[in-house]
C-alpha cells in the first residue's frame, strides 16, 4: 500500500509521439465521401437515388442534344442531316431554327436596321438603375457600368449602328463612370431622364416632343421660383396652371418648330413590331418602374389612419391579388374598350403595361407594407419627436429604411413579373415563349419544331431570373451586414 514514496514520480511522458496518420477511411476523398454521401443507410440510399436521377437524365437527353443540327434551312433538312449522320431512326435537336430566327426571339419584328436602338436602351437602363440598385459599393458600380458599357458598345458594333450613336454611347458611359466616381448622387439625373430617352429610342419619332413634355416641369418650377416665396399656395397653383397650359397648347407647336430647326428624329416603330424578349423586357421594366411608386402609395394608404383611404386601398389590393393575371390581361385586350370613353382606342402594349403595372403594384404594396411593419416602432416615434410632419417622416426616415428591408421582396416581385410576361402570348402578342414560337411554326420550313425554341427561351429566362435572384441575395447579405 505504501509503495508510493518521495522519489516515485507519476509517469509523465516528456516527448511527444509523432502524430499517427488518421485511418485511411478518415482522410481525403474517402472521408469526404463517407461524411457527405454515405453517412448512414438513409444517406446512402439518397446518394444512390441521386446518381440514378443524374444517369437517367443524362441517358435520355444527351443523345438528343449531341445529335443536334445547327445548320439547316428547314426541319425536313434537319431530319435528313440527322439520318445521314447518325443513321436512320436517330433523333436530334434541330437548333438551326434558333440560328435562323434568333433575332425574332430577341426583337420580334423590330426593323433589323434599328436593332441598335433596343440594345442602346438596354445599356442605358443599367446607367439608370445604377444609383438605385448598384449603389451598395463603388466597386460594384464601377464594374457594372464598365462591363455593361463595353458589352453594349460591342453589341452595337455588331448590329448596324449609325456612328453618332456609338460615339454618343462612349460619351454617355464615360460621363456616367466619372459621375459614379466623383458625384454618385448626380447619377439620378440619368434615372430621371431615362424613361423619356428610352421611349424615344424604342418607338422613334421626334425627340423634341417628349423633351418638351418634360420641359413642362421646368416651366412649373420656373413659375414657382418667380413668385415670391411667401405666397406658396398661389405659387403652386400658378405653377400647375402654367405647366398644364404648356402641355395642352404649347408643347406640340414648340416641338414642331424645334423639329423644323434641328431635326432630331428616329424612324418610328410601331408597337405591333415589338416581340420576343424585347417585348418581355419593355413590359417588365416599365411595369416595375411604375408599380414601385404606386405600390409605395398603396402601402402607405393601407397603413393610413384615415378610414376611407385605408378601406379603398385594401379593396384595391385584395381585388387585384385575388384574380389571376391572365384575367386582367383579358380585361386589357377585350374589356378596356368598354370602360373607356367611346372611340378611345390606344396601343395594346400600353394597355398591357397598365394592367401589369396595376397587378405588380398590388403585390409591391404588400411587400413594402411588410417592410414598413418590420421597422421598429421607435423609428416612427423618433420622427414624431423631431417634429417632422407625416411626409417628412416618411421621406427622410421611414421609407428609406423600409425600402431597403424590402429589396429582396421587390426583386422577387420583379422576377415573377418578368416571368409572367409570357402570358401576353395568350392574348395574341408575340411573347418569346408562345407567340414567337407559334408563328415560327406557322412557317412551312419550321412546322413541327417544338423543343428547341422552348430550350432556347427557357435558358434565357433562367439566366436573367437567376442572376437577378442571386444579386438580390447578395444585396440582402450586404445590407444585413450594414445593419449590424
Amino acid at each position, binding site marked *: 500500500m505504501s509503495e508510493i514514496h518521495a522519489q516515485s514520480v507519476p509517469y509523465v511522458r516528456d516527448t511527444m509521439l509523432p502524430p499517427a496518420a488518421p485511418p485511411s477511411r478518415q482522410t481525403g476523398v474517402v472521408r469526404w465521401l463517407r*461524411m*457527405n*454521401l454515405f*453517412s448512414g443507410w438513409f*444517406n446512402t440510399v*439518397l*446518394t444512390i*437515388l*441521386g*446518381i440514378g*436521377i*443524374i444517369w437517367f437524365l443524362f441517358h435520355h437527353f444527351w443523345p438528343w442534344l449531341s445529335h443536334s443540327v445547327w445548320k439547316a434551312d428547314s426541319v425536313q433538312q434537319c431530319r435528313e442531316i440527322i439520318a445521314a449522320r447518325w443513321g436512320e431512326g436517330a433523333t436530334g435537336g434541330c437548333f438551326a431554327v434558333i440560328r435562323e430566327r434568333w433575332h425574332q426571339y430577341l426583337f420580334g419584328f423590330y426593323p433589323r436596321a434599328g436593332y441598335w436602338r433596343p440594345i442602346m436602351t438596354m445599356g442605358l437602363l443599367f446607367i439608370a438603375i445604377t444609383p438605385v440598385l448598384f449603389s451598395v459599393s463603388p466597386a460594384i458600380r464601377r464594374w457594372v457600368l464598365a462591363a455593361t458599357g463595353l458589352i453594349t458598345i460591342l453589341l452595337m458594333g455588331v448590329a448596324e449602328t449609325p456612328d453618332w450613336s456609338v460615339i454618343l454611347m462612349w460619351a454617355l458611359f464615360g460621363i456616367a463612370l466619372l459621375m459614379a466616381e466623383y458625384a454618385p448622387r448626380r447619377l439620378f439625373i440619368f434615372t430621371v431622364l431615362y424613361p423619356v430617352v428610352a421611349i424615344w429610342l424604342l418607338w422613334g419619332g421626334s425627340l423634341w416632343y417628349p423633351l418638351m413634355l418634360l420641359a413642362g416641369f421646368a416651366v412649373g418650377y420656373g413659375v414657382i421660383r418667380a413668385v415670391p416665396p411667401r405666397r406658396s399656395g398661389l405659387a403652386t397653383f400658378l405653377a400647375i396652371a402654367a405647366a398644364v397650359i404648356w402641355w395642352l397648347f404649347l408643347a406640340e407647336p414648340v416641338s414642331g418648330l424645334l423639329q423644323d430647326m434641328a431635326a432630331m428624329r428616329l424612324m418610328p416603330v410601331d408597337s405591333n413590331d415589338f416581340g420576343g424578349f424585347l417585348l418581355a423586357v419593355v413590359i417588365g421594366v416599365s411595369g416595375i418602374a411604375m408599380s414601385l411608386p404606386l405600390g409605395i402609395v398603396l402601402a402607405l394608404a393601407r397603413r393610413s*389612419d*384615415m*378610414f*376611407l*383611404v385605408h378601406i*379603398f386601398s385594401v379593396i384595391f389590393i*385584395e*381585388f387585384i*391579388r*385575388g*384574380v*389571376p*393575371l*391572365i*384575367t386582367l390581361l*383579358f*380585361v386589357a385586350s*377585350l*374589356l378596356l*374598350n*368598354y*370602360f*373607356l*370613353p*367611346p372611340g378611345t382606342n390606344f396601343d395594346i402594349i400600353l394597355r398591357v403595361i397598365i394592367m401589369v403595372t396595376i397587378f405588380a403594384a398590388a403585390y409591391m404594396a404588400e411587400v413594402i407594407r411588410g417592410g414598413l411593419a418590420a421597422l421598429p416602432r421607435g423609428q416612427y416615434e423618433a420622427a414624431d419627436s423631431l417634429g417632422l410632419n407625416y411626409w417628412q417622416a416618411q421621406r427622410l426616415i421611414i421609407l428609406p429604411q423600409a425600402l431597403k428591408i424590402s429589396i429582396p421582396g421587390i426583386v422577387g416581385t420583379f*422576377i415573377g413579373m418578368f*416571368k*409572367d410576361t*409570357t*402570358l401576353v*402570348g*395568350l392574348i395574341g402578342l408575340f411573347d418569346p*415563349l*408562345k407567340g414567337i414560337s407559334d408563328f415560327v411554326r406557322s412557317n412551312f420550313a419550321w412546322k413541327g419544331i*417544338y*423543343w428547341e425554341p*422552348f430550350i432556347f*427561351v*427557357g435558358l434565357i*429566362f*433562367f439566366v436573367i*431570373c*437567376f442572376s437577378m*435572384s442571386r444579386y438580390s441575395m447578395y444585396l440582402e447579405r450586404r445590407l444585413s451586414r450594414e445593419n449590424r
Partner: protein
Amino acid sequence: MIDRASAGRQDPPFRLSMLIYDKRYRSLTFQVIVFILVMSLVWWLINNTITNLANLGKDIDFGFLFSRAGYDIPQQVIPYNSDDTHFRAALIGLLNTLLVSFLGCIAATIVGVTVGVLRLSNNWLFARLMTIYVEIFRNIPLLLWILIIFAVFTEITPAPRAYRGEEGIDLFLGMVAPTNRYTAIPAIIAARSPGALELGRIAIPWLAIIFIGLLVAAVMLRRAINARASRIQERTGQRPVTWPVNLALFVVPPIALWIIFGLYLEIPQLAGFNFSGGISVDNSFVALWLALTLYTGAFIAEIVRAGILSVSKGQSEAAFALGLRPNRTMNLVILPQALRVIVPPLISQYLNLTKNSSLAIAVGYMDLRGTLGGTTANQTGRELESILLMMLVYLAISLLISGAMNIYNSRVRLKER
C-alpha cells in the same frame, strides 16, 4: 394665467382655410376628396360602359348562362354533355379548377417540405440536386413548365393501340395503362352494390359515402385514443401501447367493406380506339397538376428552408442535449417554431397556385378560364359578362382560401405566447 390658458383653449371661429391647414379637419377633408375622386372614377367607368354598350347595341344580360352550351368538355367531375347550359359548363370548369388546385396544394406542400428539408441534409449530392431543382423551377416561367411536362407525357408514353394484340405492351402491374392521352387505372366495383345517392343528375355511390364516413370516424377515434394515452402517461408516466388499435382503425373498415360488398378491381380493357372500364385520368390534368406542383413546390421548399433556418441553432442543440432523437427534434422542437414563419408565405403560395391554374388552357384542361372565360365567352360573344363573372369567382376563391388560412395562422400564432 388661468384666464389666458382657458382663453387659448377656446376654439377659434371656423374658417374655410382650416379644412386644409388644421390637422383636425385635414384628414376629413382629404378623405372626402379621395371619396369623391374614387366615386367619380367608378361613375365614369360605369357611364362609359353603358354608353359603349348602347353604341354597340348590346346590354348586360346574364341570360346566356342558361342557354345550350353545345360544346363538350373532356374532364368532368359531375355529369355534363353538350346539351347542358353554359352555367353548368362554367360549373364544370369551376370544379376542375378547384380539383387541380386542391390536389396541387397538397402535392406542392409535400414536395416543398421534402425538398426544403433535404436541401439542408448533409448529403452533399442530394442537397446539390435539390438546389438545382429549386433554382431551375423558380427561374423559368410556369407556362413553359406546363407545356414541357405535357409534351413529355405525350412523347414518352405509348398510344393506346400499342397495348393491342399479342405483341402489345403489357399493362403496368397488370392493371395500369399509361398512354399518351390518359392513364387508365382500375376502378373499384362492388358486386353487391348498395346503390348510389341521387342528387339530381349527380350520383354519389353510397360506398364512397360510407368509406369517407368511416375514415372520418377513424381519425376522430385515433385522436381520442391518443389523448387518452397522453392522459395516462401524465398520470402514471407509462404510455399505453396505442399503435395496434390505431392501425386496426384504418385497416379493418376497408377490409370489412371489401368483403361485405364483394368489391373487385375493374381492369381497363382496350376496346376500339381507347380503353374502357376503369378510370381514365387525362394527361392534361396530370401535366397541369404536376407542373403546378413542381413549380410551387420549389417556392415552398425555399419557404420551408428559410423557416427551418430561422429557428436558432440553440433550439436543436438544446433538444439534442435533452436526448431527443433527430426526427423527434424536428417534429417537436423545430417544425412547430418554424411553422409560424412558414405559414403566412405558404398561404400566398396556395393562392398563387390556384390563380396559376388558370394557365390550364395551354394544355387543354378545361378549367373555369377555359369554359366560362374561354369557349362560352367566345361562342356567345358575351365577353364582358363572362370575364367579370370569372374574375368574381376567382376573387371569391382567393378570399375563401386566405380567410381559412388566416384562421389557421392565428391559431398557430397563439401558441407563441
